[in-house]
């Protein structure tokens, strides 16, 4: 490799690094912004909406989405160890689904958990 090629390669490596860092700033800032908006929408729902299965569904979606954002971007599990990432992500798939199902099948849950 000639000296000029080496210089180019180094410049490219530095550029890539700087771009990656800049993107990371944007990603963290954007993640925070989205989480804020979703939280405020949740609060609006709490203050205005009447109980409905559709509302429960939307809230469950928002829980799953917020959890995924924190896990991938703040906790940095997006590229991390697969087992840990899978467990953490699945927590935020399983519980939103359980919240929804608990609403739909509340009578059955009450029957199943009654000690006669």
């Amino acid at each position: 490799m000639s000296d000029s090629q080496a210089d180019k390669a180094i410049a490219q490596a530095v550029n890539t690094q700087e771009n990656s860092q800049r993107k990371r700033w944007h990603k963290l800032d954007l993640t925070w912004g989205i989480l804020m908006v979703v939280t405020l929408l949740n609060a609006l729902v709490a203050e205005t909406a009447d109980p409905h299965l559709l509302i429960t569904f939307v809230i469950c979606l928002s829980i799953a989405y917020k959890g995924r954002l924190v896990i991938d971007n703040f906790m940095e599990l997006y590229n991390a160890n697969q087992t840990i990432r899978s467990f953490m992500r699945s927590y935020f798939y399983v519980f939103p689904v359980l919240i929804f199902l608990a609403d739909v099948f509340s009578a059955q849950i009450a029957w199943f958990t009654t000690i006669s």
Partner: protein
Amino acid sequence: MSTVTTEVFYLNGRGAVAQEPESLKRIPGNRAVWVGIFAELTEFAMFFIIYFIAKAHYPQEFDQGPLKLNTLAGTLNTVALISSSYFVAKAMFAIRNDRPQASARWLWGALLAGLAYLAIKTWEYQWNVDLGIHSDTNSFYTLYYYMTFNHLLHVGWASGTLLWAIYQIKKQVYTAENHSGMMAIACYWHMVDLAWIIIFPLLYVLR
């Protein structure tokens, strides 16, 4: 002939960094903190399951309960915790880029947000007492106090770990080359935020 060598990753804070993330295919922080994180999440999972069962048995209490709670306090607490998580992520970014002062400042921000959470929660409990809401008022409020107070304790001791991380940065123990302990603290803090992401809609939003 000259050769180009670039160092690629910090592997969990050990080595030299050129690219993010440091935790590529690795366990962020250390194994021990993840045992703790999964244990804590299991504990919160038990609370959530008890909530489902109690709600099925006492639907009216769980329908009326959230209406009396202070939604503003719950929302402000969510804002405080999400912001603190963001500050911690920024602190990690700064320490990797060899900016320990900036990293410590972000951690102070996270700590202040944690303290704001504790202050808001105290105000909220006082508000509840003024309205005659106690832990034995009904099943909903029993669960409400059990979950939120337990979570408050987690925020309390996790705030202590943030203070420890700031101290370690000042002592130059956590540096651009070595910050796996700080990453472990950051992961624990994010876990506390994650638990609240489920608790907030369960207690304040859903009826």
